[in-house]
């Protein structure tokens, strides 16, 4: 994550936002944020809903933690790149920079905006509804 912090300005100049995700408590994560002086937020997936929905739950450690991974999503909410770390493979921030530099950031608004049929409004749903919505979405794919 330090790499992403160090290259943060480069990512911003390419129009990309960054957020980290962990299952740690907000208190723990905020300690990390301050300790490493991260310029981006740490999202707290304490219920493990998001890591479960995206197949990134490592259930073997503690009560389940996130599998280290870096995902790039386009403004149309589609997955553009999915890099999952293995035992001997780390995702390098520089590689994401290279990817973004070759990625058409200024795609036409038609490409970027989801169609009306796909547009869904989510206002802080209950976690159960959220999980169910994600489950339904993936079983329909």
């Amino acid at each position, binding site marked *: *994550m330090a790499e*992403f912090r160090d290259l943060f300005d480069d*990512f911003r100049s390419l*129009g*990309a*936002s960054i*957020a*980290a*995700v*962990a*299952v*740690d408590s*907000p208190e*723990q*994560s*905020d*300690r990390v944020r301050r300790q490493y002086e991260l310029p981006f*937020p*740490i*999202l*707290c*997936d304490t219920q493990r*809903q*998001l*890591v*479960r*929905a*995206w*197949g990134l739950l490592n259930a073997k*450690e503690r009560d389940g*933690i*996130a599998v*280290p*991974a*870096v*995902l*790039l*999503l*386009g*403004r149309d*909410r*589609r*997955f*553009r*790149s*999915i890099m*999952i770390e293995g035992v001997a493979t780390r995702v390098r921030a520089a590689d994401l920079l290279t990817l*973004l530099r070759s990625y058409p*950031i200024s795609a036409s608004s038609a490409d970027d905006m*989801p169609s009306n049929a796909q547009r*869904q409004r*989510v*206002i*802080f*749903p209950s976690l159960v509804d959220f999980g169910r919505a*994600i*489950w339904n*979405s*993936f079983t329909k*794919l």
Partner: protein
Amino acid sequence: MNELQNPQVGALAEDFALCDSTGTPHTLSSLLTDGPLLLIFYRGYW
């Protein structure tokens, strides 16, 4: 709930709502307002 598979490139991500470590709520849609989004999943700390 069963654990699902990794999403595929090109698939549409369902919107989600999570608070960050300062308590500020975010949705995937809000994080994507200005451009593409890099999500860094990490193991976490004790």
